[in-house]
């Protein structure tokens, strides 16, 4: 056990204790999420759907995007593949926080020296990584097919960078909101609202006549990052996006979840002291 008796060593010791707790929570949150059969079944379905879509695209001369330079091609494919798995990730993350409350494990954890912020961070990153894993596997399969089609292995490092820049920030964004919102909303209601939000805030054209987040740097699907940084705009409303807007979108999609998680932590802390 961590010995934090010495005054001089206390800070360092406490940090080591919290780091160890973070890694433990991360590992177990990852393990519990990755073991969910429903997660794999849902993503197997998504894979089939996206694969059939990919084959149609590759074999359709009118809609072919394969004439694009390699980097733009991969970025466009990454964005195109993001719309469906991200919904799955949001839906499957929805129960991660409320189940701790309903099963009362949160109270048991509260009696341990592992700090709330440590547990929250471990839960966030562990469950996000596990939820993203099947989506990333789907992505790898499709990128593998594309690599075979284009006869180049260079596609893989480009794909990893594209995924990290276009997909991951949006996932971190929705994951933070999912954890926060499900602390006050009934899970099925949140899941329903989330699917609605996803289509409203990412897929609905700004020209449709309804106010929407689509076409703003807050779009978590990563459209502005794709158009601004990689220079490819698969949706008409992304045309003309500048690199600055792409970077701004990336920054916003990374900073907002951080702020949401900090706010969430303070809300939980307040709730704890006012029970």
């Amino acid at each position, binding site marked *: 056990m961590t010995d934090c008796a010495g005054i001089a060593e206390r800070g360092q010791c406490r940090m080591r204790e919290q780091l160890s707790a973070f890694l433990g929570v991360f590992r177990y949150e990852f393990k519990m999420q990755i073991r969910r059969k429903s997660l794999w079944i849902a993503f197997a379905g998504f894979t089939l759907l996206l694969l059939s879509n990919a084959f149609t695209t590759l074999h359709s001369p009118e809609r072919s995007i394969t004439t694009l330079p390699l980097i733009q091609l991969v970025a466009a494919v990454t964005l195109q593949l993001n719309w469906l798995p991200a919904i799955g990730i949001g839906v499957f993350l929805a129960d991660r926080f409320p189940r701790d409350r309903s099963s009362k494990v949160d*109270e048991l954890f509260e009696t*341990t020296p592992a700090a709330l912020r440590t547990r929250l961070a471990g839960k966030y990153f562990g469950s996000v990584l596990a939820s993203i894993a099947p989506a990333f596997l789907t992505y790898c399969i499709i990128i593998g097919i594309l690599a075979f089609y284009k006869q180049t292995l260079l596609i893989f490092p480009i794909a990893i960078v594209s995924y990290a820049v276009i997909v991951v920030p949006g996932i971190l964004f929705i994951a933070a909101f999912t954890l926060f919102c499900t602390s006050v909303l009934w899970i099925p209601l949140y899941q329903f609202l989330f699917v609605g939000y996803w289509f409203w805030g990412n897929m609905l054209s700004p020209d449709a006549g309804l106010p929407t987040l689509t076409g703003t740097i807050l779009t978590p699907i990563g459209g502005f990052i794709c158009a601004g940084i990689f220079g490819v705009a698969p949706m008409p409303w992304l045309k003309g996006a500048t690199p600055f807007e792409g970077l701004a979108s990336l920054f916003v999609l990374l900073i907002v979840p951080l702020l949401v998680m900090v706010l969430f932590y303070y809300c939980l802390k307040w709730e704890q002291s006012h029970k």
Partner: protein
Amino acid sequence: MKIEIGGLHKVYRGGVHALDTVDMNIPGGMFGLLGPNGAGKTTLMRIMAGILRPTSGDLYIGEYDCNTEHGRTAVKRIQGYLPQDLGVYPDLSAGEFLDYIGILKGMDDRKARRHRVNELLEIVSLTSAANRKLKTYSGGMKRRIGIAQALLNDPRLLIVDEPTAGLDPEERIRFRNLLSELGGDRTVLLSTHIVEDIAQTCRNLAILKQGRVVFQGTTMDLVGEARGRVWIVTTSGAKPQGDFTIVSTLHMGTSVQYRLVGSLAAPDEDGAVATEPSLEDSYVWLMREQRTPGVTMASK
């Protein structure tokens, strides 16, 4: 490890007073906390475990002031807590769950943690079920996992809330014996409304009622308070008359034997025989006395 509680108040949202000026000194060893449902036992336990914050008042556990973040964290390192309703992740096995709790308790040496988990699974006789998911466990098995997780860090302070609720008689006895053994070299706080559990394990106890301490002392002190107020009446006629509470009724063919706590209108006419009170009789007597407002007993 001594625990000192001074003027502890807890008011929940909505104005519910769960604890009202609780003063208590808890010595080392086994200490029982007794009281009816809703007396505030669980609230007090949860405050000590660091789950709840008191509205006001002082709580010192050993040298640590639990009104400070530093004090609370320090206590969490040396305590084990078994809640009334143990929360588990149903999809984890017992071994994994204990490993997880061990990590949160700061046991960062993987080998030592694994060794301790196996040792505790052995103690609670769950080695053969260590790899089974917790959702397949019975209530008794979950209780045993609960005590195992509480003991992981070899705590100097063990807080157990209603540990025997829902257990069969054999398991209850086993559990009580285990707690008694643990109480030898640490402070064990046992909260329950089952008087027998206290009678069999604790020398010192406190009784809570409606958020207030109505008794603190030894079990012998409590028994002494009820001496001369417990009667056995065997009758084949009408029920005896008086201001008493019937503790037990035993049908014996043509007659009925009553065990009563209180005063009889005519003890001689009823053939009442005064008998030595048990802890349960004494508890019943105390609760009766507390119905008269303003009566507080403390034996120190």
